[in-house]
């Protein structure tokens, strides 16, 4: 009887060991699998980040090219035209008012074009910080008198120079959308730091848009850029009641 009992204990011990081995193998296998999945996800994320980075770089390069073209070709043509108008004014002695107005308008166009090409030039952008660039952009918008824009932020933007350029492009796109698609006549840009994050909002009084219209309009581009900085972007919009673009970015400690 005792012998049988001992045999049973041995059999049960073996069964327990088998069960333990099965469980240990399952745990080991799942752990290995989850490590591989994590590595795969990290690689995917890195690839996405690189892709976004290169997209932004290509876009910046395109902007730079357009800026140069505007400055060197269109700008030169306008300057030549203004010079010719000036010469005509002088040769006439008593030039008509329309000619003087045309000359002044052309001068204004040349100034507009210069500031626009500067805005597209990355090298120029790198010399200034976000606040200065945005203020210049706002001044440019306000000179047109059709749209009234303001920027409320007194602090120093706590982001690296490269991140500031990307953020500037997002805000620029939001302003363009407000003017072009929203037909807004008032735009208010605010920024505030809170809990290691910077919150930027671009609010307008335009016609807004419904969630069905949320595609296109460079929105995905803006989202890409915000993601590139490790942040988020959200649109708060009700048709006929304006739009608020809310950008939240983490504050980089090395900034």
């Amino acid at each position, binding site marked *: *009887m*005792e012998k*049988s*009992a*001992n045999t*049973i*204990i041995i*059999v*049960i011990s073996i*069964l*327990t060991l*088998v*069960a*333990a081995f*099965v*469980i240990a193998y*399952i*745990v080991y*296998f*799942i*752990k290995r*699998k*989850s490590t591989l*999945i*994590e590595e795969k*996800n990290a690689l995917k994320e890195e690839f996405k980040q690189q892709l976004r980075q290169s997209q932004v770089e290509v876009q910046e390069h395109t902007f730079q090219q357009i800026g140069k073209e505007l400055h060197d070709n269109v700008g030169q043509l306008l300057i030549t035209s203004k010079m010719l108008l000036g010469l005509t004014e002088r040769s006439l002695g008593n030039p008509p008012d329309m000619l003087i107005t045309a000359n002044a308008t052309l001068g204004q166009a040349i100034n507009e074009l210069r500031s626009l090409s500067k805005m597209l030039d990355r090298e120029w952008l790198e010399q200034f910080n976000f606040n200065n660039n945005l203020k210049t952009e706002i001044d440019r918008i306000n000179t047109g008198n059709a749209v009234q824009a303001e920027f409320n932020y007194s602090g120093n933007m706590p982001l690296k120079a490269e991140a500031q350029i990307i953020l500037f492009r997002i805000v620029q796109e939001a302003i363009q959308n407000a003017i072009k698609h929203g037909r807004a006549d008032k735009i208010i840009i605010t920024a505030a730091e809170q809990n290691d994050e910077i919150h930027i909002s671009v609010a307008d009084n335009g016609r807004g848009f419904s969630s069905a219209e949320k595609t296109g309009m460079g929105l995905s581009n803006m989202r890409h850029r915000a993601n590139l900085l490790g942040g988020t972007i959200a649109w708060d919009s009700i048709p006929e009641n304006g739009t608020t673009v809310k950008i939240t970015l983490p504050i980089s400690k090395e900034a």
Partner: protein
Amino acid sequence: MAIADFFNLTVCAEIAALIAALLFITRQRHGYWRLFPLYLAVILLAEWIGFSLRMQRIRNHHLYNILWIFQSIFFSYLFYRFHQVKYIKYQVFFVLGIFLCFYLSEAFYRSFSDSFQFSRQFLSIIIIFFSCTFYFSLLKHDITSTPLRFPPFWIVTGLFFFYFGSAIMFTIPMEIKRTRVIGNMILYDLVMGTFSCILYGSWVTAFIWKNRQIQ
């Protein structure tokens, strides 16, 4: 009959699990996790009644026969909740139906005061089978964390060890079960006590992880 007799290895493990369930699970919102304290309280009560009947030399098989029905329904419900795949969820209740038919046919051929050994063995097979399908689904799905932090994993692991290891105890004759082995303990009590410790130890771990998840 001393009070200490009521606190054997199995009962101590059950008390520990009940205390852990009351401490860690009562704040749980999900319905099925809240059932654990109730289940453990019923098991503990049945264990004490069964033990006191055994001490008075009264057969207690009818008590355990009823308890197995309660256990089979509770475990089926657990596997139903733990499994993510829909067709396996339905299979759980289908197999529970088969078990109940098996149980009723055994009840028809045997006296209710006898132990329903075949039903108990069948229940062990069912639990081992659904534990294996649970592990298989864990292997199949892309989970990004260790299963050791996953409370259902510990619940199922406890059940798997208990029923895989103790199944043999229900196939051997009563005389061998009553043999005294290490430390003058009865073989049946030693084996069931050891596996109860593994089962309820795993459940306590599950309750702790569940509590951490809530926090």
